[in-house]
């Protein structure tokens, strides 16, 4: 009887100690469990944040390229207010909602500027992005703000610069020709224009630009003056470098920038 009493008492003590031990282990397990869930949640949130940061430029690139294409056709710089972002924000919020993540995404109007380094003169698009993500399953939160920056490899400034430089060169060469010899004939004017166009085309070709210009001239003389009327037709330039390709509605294309036609009359008086 005493033996049974000792056995029972020992069993109860062992059981009690085991309960304490198991309870301790259980607490640890619960903590590890909590940590595992939080780790999964953090991985999910950071993965979602990476995903939206990576996808925004992917989406915007095609939108910006469309705007660049349209503005280039008109000879303007791209207008940031024409860039459509609302659809993407709605889609991104829906994507996050499906993963049980509540999102608040704010995107400001893109800013365009020209790159100073390679590819020089290309358009750099800067989009300020701010987001707050909250995992609804375990209340983990992630907030951050970042500038999404990407380059549209189109050298948009070149047409205005090159067209005006080209026109100025043609005009100054013809001026020089008549200043030196007022009796210069029409053939000399023509030769100068053709030579200037050729020089420009070969210079552009060296930097992967396809430059097209056409100039008509007319020389009118009377006893007192010589008038040279120069008609610059649409000047066009296409960036032919491997990078300068844009995708418009799924099709790869190259943007051709156009400068408008203009007419200039130069007058030379006999002294």
């Amino acid at each position, binding site marked *: 009887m005493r033996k049974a009493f000792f056995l*029972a008492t020992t069993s109860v003590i062992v059981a009690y100690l085991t309960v304490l031990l198991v309870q301790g282990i259980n607490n640890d397990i619960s903590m590890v469990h909590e940590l595992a869930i939080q780790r999964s949640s953090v991985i999910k949130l950071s993965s979602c944040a990476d995903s939206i940061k990576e996808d925004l430029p992917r989406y915007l690139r095609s939108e910006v390229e469309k705007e660049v294409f349209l503005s280039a056709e008109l000879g303007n710089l791209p207008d940031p207010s024409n860039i459509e972002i609302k659809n993407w924000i709605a889609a991104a919020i829906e994507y996050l909602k499906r*993963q049980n993540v509540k999102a608040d995404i704010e995107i400001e109007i893109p800013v365009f500027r020209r790159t100073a380094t390679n590819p020089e003169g290309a358009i750099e698009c800067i989009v300020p992005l701010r987001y707050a993500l909250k995992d609804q399953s375990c209340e983990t939160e992630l907030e951050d703000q970042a500038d999404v920056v990407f380059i549209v490899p189109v050298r948009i400034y070149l047409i205005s610069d090159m067209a005006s430089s080209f026109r100025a060169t043609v005009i100054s060469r013809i001026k020089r020709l008549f200043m030196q010899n007022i009796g210069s004939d029409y053939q000399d004017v023509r030769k100068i224009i053709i030579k200037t166009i050729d020089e420009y085309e070969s210079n552009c070709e060296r930097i992967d630009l396809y430059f097209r210009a056409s100039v008509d001239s007319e020389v009118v003389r009377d006893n007192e003056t010589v008038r040279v009327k120069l008609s610059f037709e649409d000047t066009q330039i296409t960036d032919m470098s491997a990078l300068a390709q844009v995708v418009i509605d799924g099709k790869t294309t190259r943007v051709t920038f156009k400068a408008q036609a203009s007419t200039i009359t130069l007058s030379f008086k006999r002294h």
Partner: protein
Amino acid sequence: MHTILDSMAANSAIWILLCIALLATVQTEHVSQELKESYFASQASSIMQKAESLGYIDALARCEGDLQSADSLMLKIVQLCPRGMLCTIIWKTEKGEVIKAIGTQDLGVAGYVTTIVSTPTQITYLTLGVGER
């Protein structure tokens, strides 16, 4: 009488001990699974990041209509999966229609990462799952 009571107490204590030990084992198993899922999710996330940095996701977005190119790109992503692990990759439209799927569909204990992929015409989702072989 005392012997019966002692015996009952001893038996109950042993049963409680057994039950708690069993419960602890089940809980440990549950936590172990949660940890595995978390580990696989982190693996999937790093594979996705690597695929993004290598330009595979951008390229995939561009070849929306070209399923053959999409297939080879998705294979490249799957090949980034570490040895000893199984990968599955599913590319779906916003409405949930499968554009292309590669790999074992039933991975068991696995971690999944979904990324948003804007193609020139629509918004799509790319889900990568990583599990143990």
